[in-house]
């Protein structure tokens, strides 16, 4: 009965545990969707290797729960310092306009 609220609480902790957190389809080593792959590639391009990634394909509760948690309808989802940044389109646009470098600098990551 309390699993829905449990997962919301868990997610609150998961996104704060690491500076960069990604919820994706597949794994860093083997993304299972082009959009998730794009996020992995963008982060790699900026030298961000040490981040937490969670595979939503492994866990249907996580897949639905993270959408509710962020009020965002799609996967992948990227978090910096516990804050929701956006999905693949937003990360790509931040990469293109230089905002991503600035945001990573705030996290102490030099790209």
């Amino acid at each position, binding site marked *: 009965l309390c699993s829905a609220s449990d997962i919301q609480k868990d997610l609150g902790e998961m996104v704060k545990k690491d500076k960069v957190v990604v919820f994706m389809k597949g794994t860093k080593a083997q993304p299972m969707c082009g*959009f998730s792959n794009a996020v992995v590639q963008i982060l790699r391009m900026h030298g961000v290797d040490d981040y937490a990634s969670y595979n939503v394909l492994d866990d249907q509760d996580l897949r639905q729960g993270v959408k509710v948690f962020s009020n965002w*309808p*799609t996967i992948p989802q990227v978090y910096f310092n516990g804050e929701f940044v956006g999905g693949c389109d937003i990360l790509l*646009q931040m990469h293109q306009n230089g905002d991503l470098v600035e945001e990573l600098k705030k996290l102490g990551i030099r790209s």
Partner: protein
Amino acid sequence: MSVTADHIREKLTKELGAVHVDVEDTSPNRCATSYKVLVVSSQFEGKPLLQRHRMVNTCLAEELKEIHAFEQKTLTPEQWEKQKSQ
């Protein structure tokens, strides 16, 4: 309800006051209903990217339930002019 490009365009134009909307049906390249949209609206002015995308997501909340993959780009009329001239 079946989602069409025209339906998405009309809704974004009406609800977000979009002055220009490009809707590309990318379903043929993917495994299910997929769309890529460009939305140009003065309502995006002064709003960060995340908030703009949330406005589009909210506007299309019902439709997104049936869409498998959704890509969006949100520009102000000024940004759009600049991009066109590039």
